[in-house]
């Protein structure tokens, strides 16, 4: 069978190509995972389908309802969007941690998610922000919470013929913000040993009324830590709430043991980063209430 590259210009054309193809078809966004795997021989596709000519798949739209981020939008473009950075600083800082300037020129949220690495940086931040993936396929369109896309290392819940077209983020409630932190042994160009994202909404008195906590690189998939959120809801993030969050984060970890971090180390750091990310998220939400920019 001969290898081929296709760049459909409509969703229908792309879905028809994916459903009709024989052999292995790989979807291409920025290629910063796929091309590495292609070169190393780890994946041997027959067809590569480039999504980037599909309208809407590159770029960010801000509407009354919130934000729509095209699936293939590169990190560099995400980092330059002031509105998104103000509303969802956690997603922007997480997306911008991916790789070098060169990688930022190409790496997308859909690729980061669908490569399904447990350490993918943008995924915990998207989960805590409540991001919804708009999945298109032979049966039309469906809206899937980001935490339901990855089902194991390298595996997603997308069916044959499906791909992600865009991500939707609601307009954030007043006094809401988020943060993402990762631990790496150096300061740049490394893969998370642990990642933690927290989003919070505060009431007028500064009490947390809504929270989401997610951890990366401590289990086969990113985790939504419901007990961690419950630990801080109703508090002003006092020491007791932080201690409960730390314990809840450590309790869900099921990490690997490798040269970059032992099991014990990863579990401990998960608790620490969850606390720190929560503190930053609350600070940012308070800053917003005071009308300051961050």
């Amino acid at each position: 069978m001969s290898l081929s590259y296709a760049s459909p210009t409509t969703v229908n054309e792309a879905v028809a190509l994916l459903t009709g193809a024989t052999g292995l078809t790989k979807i291409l966004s920025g290629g910063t995972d796929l091309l590495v795997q292609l070169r190393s021989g780890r994946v041997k596709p027959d067809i590569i389908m480039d999504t980037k000519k599909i309208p809407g798949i590159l770029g960010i739209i801000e509407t009354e309802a919130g934000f729509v981020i095209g699936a293939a939008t590169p990190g560099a473009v995400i980092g330059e969007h002031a509105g998104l950075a103000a509303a969802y600083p956690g997603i922007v800082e997480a997306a911008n941690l991916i790789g070098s300037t060169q990688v930022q020129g190409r790496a997308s949220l859909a690729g980061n998610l669908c490569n399904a690495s447990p350490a993918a940086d943008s995924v915990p931040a998207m989960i805590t922000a409540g991001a919804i993936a708009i999945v298109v396929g032979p049966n039309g369109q469906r809206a899937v919470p980001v935490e339901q896309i990855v089902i194991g290392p390298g595996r997603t819940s997308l069916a044959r013929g499906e791909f992600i077209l865009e991500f939707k983020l609601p307009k954030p409630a007043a006094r809401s913000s988020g943060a993402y932190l990762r631990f790496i042994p150096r300061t740049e160009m490394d893969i998370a040993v642990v990642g933690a994202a927290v989003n919070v909404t505060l009431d007028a008195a500064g009490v947390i009324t809504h929270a989401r906590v997610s951890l990366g690189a401590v289990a086969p998939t990113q985790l939504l830590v419901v007990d961690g959120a419950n630990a801080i809801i109703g508090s002003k993030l006092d020491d007791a709430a932080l201690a409960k969050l730390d314990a809840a984060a450590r309790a869900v970890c099921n990490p690997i043991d490798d040269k970059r971090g032992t099991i014990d180390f990863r579990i401990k750091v998960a608790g620490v980063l969850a606390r720190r990310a929560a503190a930053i998220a609350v600070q940012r939400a308070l800053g917003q209430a005071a009308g300051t920019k961050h």
Partner: protein
Amino acid sequence: MSKQHVTTTINGEPAEFLAEPFMSLLDALRDEMHLTGSKEGCGSGDCGACSIIVDGRLVCSCLMLAVEAEGHEIITIEGVANGDELHPVQRKFLEHAALQCGYCTPGLIVATKALLDRHPNPTETEARYWLAGNLCRCTGYDKIIRAVMDAAAEMRGVTA
């Protein structure tokens, strides 16, 4: 394996080449266009020796398919100088001896040009982070950073 015809713009000139479907843009630049300034250090996005600018964005040409270049504007190291006149970044790399073996140099110069096109007045920290994806096994980076900061100052019209 059928080759695909690609029409693009390289260093301001229209360019065409034939590419196998899964050929990297780096291989097409080097082997089809004979623009051998861009280097392959790793082929996996880690070293930056293959850095080029596509539609104003710095990217690794080893992580792009050649066929993806269709309709886009590419700048390679060969397009940085103005004829025989070196770009200030190139001149400053020479003045500061910011290279030894030179393998990383084309990528670093293209990456520095991309930095200064966008951020004419970077701090040293910003410059170091921007260039974190360009590895050099010879210089220890210090002279590179001095060249970058000096080029930035000259291009802004101030003497460092």
